[in-house]
Structure formats: C-alpha cells, structure tokens
C-alpha cells in the first residue's frame, strides 16, 4: 500500500478543501437555507387558519421564527466568522480554515483511537482462543 500523503491527487484535494473553506465560502449565497426559510414562511399559518379560521397577520410568523433563532447559543465563531476581525473576507475565511482543521483533527484523532481499540479487541479475542485451546490440550 502506497503512502497516501505522497500522492499528488491527495494534495489536490487538500488545496481544494483549503480554497473552499478559506476563499470560496465568501461567495456563498447568503439568504436563509431551505429549512430556515420554510420555518419562517410556513410557521403556524396552516394550523392557525385551520383552528381559528382566520388568516394570521403577515410578518407574525417571521417574528416568531427570528425570536427563537436569536435565543440560541452562538458558539465561539458565530455564523462562520471570527469575532473582532473586521473584514468579512478574512473573518469568514479564517473561520472556515479553523473549521476544516478542527474537523480533520477530530476525525483523525477519533479514527486513530477507534482503530487501535479495534486492534486490541482483536488481539484479546485471539489470546482468548489460544488460552482455550492450550487448556484443553
């Protein structure tokens, strides 16, 4: 098995990941995503019409959805930006790079841990079998 880190296409993917998180993310389409949009626009409308038989005031649904959103925990890098960094391009880009680095670290760390635990489990099972066979011999 060849070392993957010696592979040109591996590094191509590294560069693509860095560009996507650090640069292209700045050009992402910013309106609310499909779930947020649906939450805002279809909130309580169906139900209140069915239950009360009268239309809700326009905007009521939006206010409700925005309020619930603002209650939430924002995180250390809220909305994919670094607090205190003025330029949106740098702030968003840095947040993206931190995000991919954290993701890589967590997955690789968990991966190494799980891999070694699986190996130990296999060894223990092997030992168990050997002890059993030797004791019967």
């Amino acid at each position, binding site marked *: 098995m060849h070392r993957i880190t010696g592979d040109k296409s591996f590094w191509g993917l590294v560069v693509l990941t860095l560009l996507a998180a650090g640069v292209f993310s700045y050009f992402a389409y910013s309106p609310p995503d499909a779930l947020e*949009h649906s939450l805002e626009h279809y909130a309580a409308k169906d139900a209140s019409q069915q239950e009360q038989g009268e239309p809700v005031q326009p905007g009521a649904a939006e206010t409700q959805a925005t309020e619930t959103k603002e209650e939430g925990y924002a995180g250390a890098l809220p909305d994919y930006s670094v607090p205190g960094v003025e330029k949106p391009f740098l702030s968003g880009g840095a947040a993206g790079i931190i995000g991919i680095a954290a993701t890589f670290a967590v997955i690789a760390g968990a991966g190494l841990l799980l891999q070694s635990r699986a190996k130990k489990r296999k060894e223990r099972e092997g030992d168990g079998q050997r002890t059993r066979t030797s004791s019967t011999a």
Partner: protein
Amino acid sequence: MHIPDGVLKGEVWAPLAAVSLVAVGIAARSAGKKLEGESIPLVGLMGAFVFALQMLNFPVAAGISDHIVGGALLAVVFGPSIAILCMTAIVTIQALVFGDGGIAALGANVFNMAILSTLAAYAIYRALSKALPKASVVVATIAGVLAGATGAALWVILSQPYGVKFFGAMILTHLVSGAVEAVVTLAVVQYLRTANLIRKIETGASNA
C-alpha cells in the same frame, strides 16, 4: 438542514438524542474495524472537505439557499460506519463552535444528517452500484438528502403547528439541493476513482 434550538419539543429532541448516541456508538465500533483498511489522513481530509462544501450555500430559489449534506459522498467512498463517524464530527463541530444547529437539537441533527441521510444513500448505492456505477451515486445522493429533509420536517411538525405546506416546501427545496449535491458527489467520486485514491469503492469496485 440544521434545526436551531427553540423549535423542537423536549419529547422530540430527547429521544432522538438517545437514539443518535446509541447509533453513533455502534457505528464507531464498526468504524474501528473498517479503518484498518483505510488511510486515516484521507478519511480526515474527506471529512474536512465535506465541512468546507457545507459552507458553500447556493441558491435553490430566489431568496432561498441551501448547501450539500455530504453523507452520501462519504458513504459511497468509505461505507456507512466511517461516514456516520465523519458526519457526526462535522455536525457536532458546527453546533458547538459555529452555532450552526442547536445544542438541544444536536441529537436530531446528527440523526437526520449523519445517520438517516447517510444510511438511506448507502442502501440505495449498494443496491444499484453494480448495475449503474454512476447513476447509483446520483440516485443515492438525492435519496439521502430527501431522507434527511423528511426527518427534519417530521421532527418540526411533531413539535410545532406546522403542516402540509411546510412539508411540501421542505421536499421541493431539498429536491433542488439534492440534485445539485448529486452532481457534486458524482464529480468527486469520479475524481477519487480516476485518481485511484480509493482502492476500491465498496460494491462498485468491479465497475470503477
């Protein structure tokens, strides 16, 4: 597709968190064995790549954006257990560090995006990949996105007075984003196949 806090009721998010915890535990144990045949740097890189792709929101209609999920891509490349592990890491980091998706809703979001979406995509990919190495990736990706969106919509409807219109809007918008994601997934899978970065793609190996 990240559900924020304040939307789901406790009766909905708490059981989902418990189910996700157990499912991720099972996946982690199975991933340990699978990882022996994989390159850990590549698994970490693909996870980071999906995180980056998730930042790239694109328009699905005027004033509505969406981003790819990525569970289908990871499932096609590494199989379901490693994919669930990677997606769980991504969704958890998004919630804890970036405030993307709620904390109470984390279990529900892991269930939708890391487990449901990934398993649905993988089941379809596995069933079709021998006969249709490319089309199976497309169909699996769209199915995965729709499965995740259906889950998210269902948990919202169980918690709040939302109805058929909300459900319909969720399916329609995610049909569009699923189609976009299918193209992206196929392009990346073909890149990995031709670059020989993945030694075999699960059941699609003979056709790769």
